[in-house]
């Protein structure tokens, strides 16, 4: 995705990397967005769109601030909603990592197990995790277990799949060589398997977290009892508080953006650059 942003392109090009080109890049990036927001604002102010259906950006901003501002209640309501959502998505992601990564290594190393399970995996992989929500709702009712369970499934399959692919992508000879040199299993894991599988693993983690977040939105709308951005949006919807709905949607978008770009982008640059000539992960896209 990042590849498509002009910001990156200028950065890459600017060998001299003067701060001036960077600023120019930033301006060309931000200008269309500002124009878009201004257009939206104007559409509402001139009455072409009804503010009770499509609130102007300024109204969303004002509402967002009043929700963020702890002066109005004991806590910042918006931060509490965001915190609840992040906690669920992260908990699901971490759980998925604990299960999927070891399983992925096991399946990746054993040809027989992989062959046996791959039809099942290729059937479950394209299945939207949200489709499991009704079963969770019947079994556990609404609440944390259902939301985290569904997000777990959303994160689990991409991580598992990428880990398997990463491990299977490792050159068998390098495993043999290291083994013949008398490496212990732990060394083998640390020196060969982990670095070899890492690029795919990281793209799997990124995908897993992104899926966890995306699944969370739907799961919270269907199953949250209190707090969480999805819950806030749906609660606002039932009382026709349109501005709050938009505040929620903007938060979902910004956090999604941060997860995909800022956190994992940095992680990729840090780790992959250390072990590999960078950019290999991008092979997937």
């Amino acid at each position, binding site marked *: 995705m990042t590849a498509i942003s002009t910001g990156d392109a200028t950065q890459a090009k600017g060998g001299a990397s003067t701060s001036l080109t960077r600023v120019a890049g930033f301006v060309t990036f931000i200008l269309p*967005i500002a124009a878009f927001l201004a257009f939206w604002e104007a559409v509402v102010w001139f009455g072409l769109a009804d503010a009770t259906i499509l609130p102007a950006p300024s109204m969303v901003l004002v509402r967002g601030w009043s929700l963020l501002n702890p002066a109005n209640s004991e806590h910042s309501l918006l931060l509490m909603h965001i915190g609840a959502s992040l906690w669920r998505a992260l908990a699901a992601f971490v759980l998925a990592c604990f299960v999927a990564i070891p399983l992925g290594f096991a399946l990746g190393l054993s040809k027989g197990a992989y062959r046996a399970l791959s039809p099942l995996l290729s059937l479950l992989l394209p299945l*939207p995790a949200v489709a499991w929500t*009704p079963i969770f709702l019947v079994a556990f009712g609404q609440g944390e277990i259902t939301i985290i369970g569904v997000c777990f499934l959303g994160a689990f399959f991409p991580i598992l799949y990428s880990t398997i692919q990463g491990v299977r992508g490792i050159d068998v000879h390098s495993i043999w060589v290291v083994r013949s040199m008398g490496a212990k299993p732990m060394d083998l894991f640390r020196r060969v398997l982990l670095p070899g599988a890492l690029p795919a693993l990281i793209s799997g983690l990124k995908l897993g977290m992104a899926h966890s977040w995306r699944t969370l939105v739907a799961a919270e709308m269907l199953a949250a009892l209190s707090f969480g951005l999805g819950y806030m949006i749906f609660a606002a919807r039932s009382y026709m508080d349109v501005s709050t709905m938009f505040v929620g949607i903007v938060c979902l978008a910004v956090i999604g953006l941060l997860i995909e770009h800022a956190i994992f982008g940095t992680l990729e640059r840090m780790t992959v650059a250390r072990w590999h000539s960078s950019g290999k992960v991008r092979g997937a896209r």
Partner: protein
Amino acid sequence: MSTIDLASAKPPSEARAIPLLPNIGARSGVIVALLVLWELAARLGWINAFLFPAPSNIAATIWTQSGPDGNPPYAMPMHVLRSMIRLLAGIALAVVIGTVLGVLIGMTRWARTLFQPLISIFMPVPTLAWTPVLLLLTGIDDRTTIIVVFIAAVFEVIYTIVAGIEMMNVKLFWVARSMGASRLQIFLRVIIPAIFPYLITGMRLGTGYAWRALIAAEMLAASSLGLGFMIYDASEYMSTNVIYAGIILIAVLGYLLENVLIGRLEASTTEKWGIQSER
């Protein structure tokens, strides 16, 4: 969704090696074994048969709900049909609009400057987050679900087409121009064939996302038909048979759509045009 799609995470050679019918028979041993085990466990009471109804019961539910004795008659085919109509309408929209935008962004400087920032901020928005807004704006479930499908698929189409144009051989372009081809001719004879394989790839990836988004959108927004609506409604009435039937249909249809149907299309275009879009 962005970045890496699952299907595209496979190396291209692997993607081609999708097991087709004869292969499935040989390789589905584990699935069959699991089903038998599940059936036994449910029948013998090892697992809660309410939460995990026996596969034979689920199959029976699919069968009765597909026939005139369903409630309403022919319920399953109607749900499947409605989901498919929404999916196809959304994908068609995404292909048309995505191609136009993709070509504009790929070919013109102004479109690139204008749209790239907008796309890169809108693309990571979870597709489902649009649902409440769309419900406000359009009100009716079919429009909302179709637009959700459109949003889920369109970014992939745009992205692959821009990538396709960037990889296009510039010489081809010059040659055509030096031979006196008009703009329209270049567009029809050079650009369209060149981006076609990319369009198909974009469609395959987009369909995968769109299918997931559609199911979730139907759960949230639909008020009458569609597989997503069916399983959510079934959870209201605790009909676990129907939920599992729906999950199975969603999985199988998703697999067929993404891998077999469009995968085939992709393979055949690659053969015909002799170009493979590396992603």
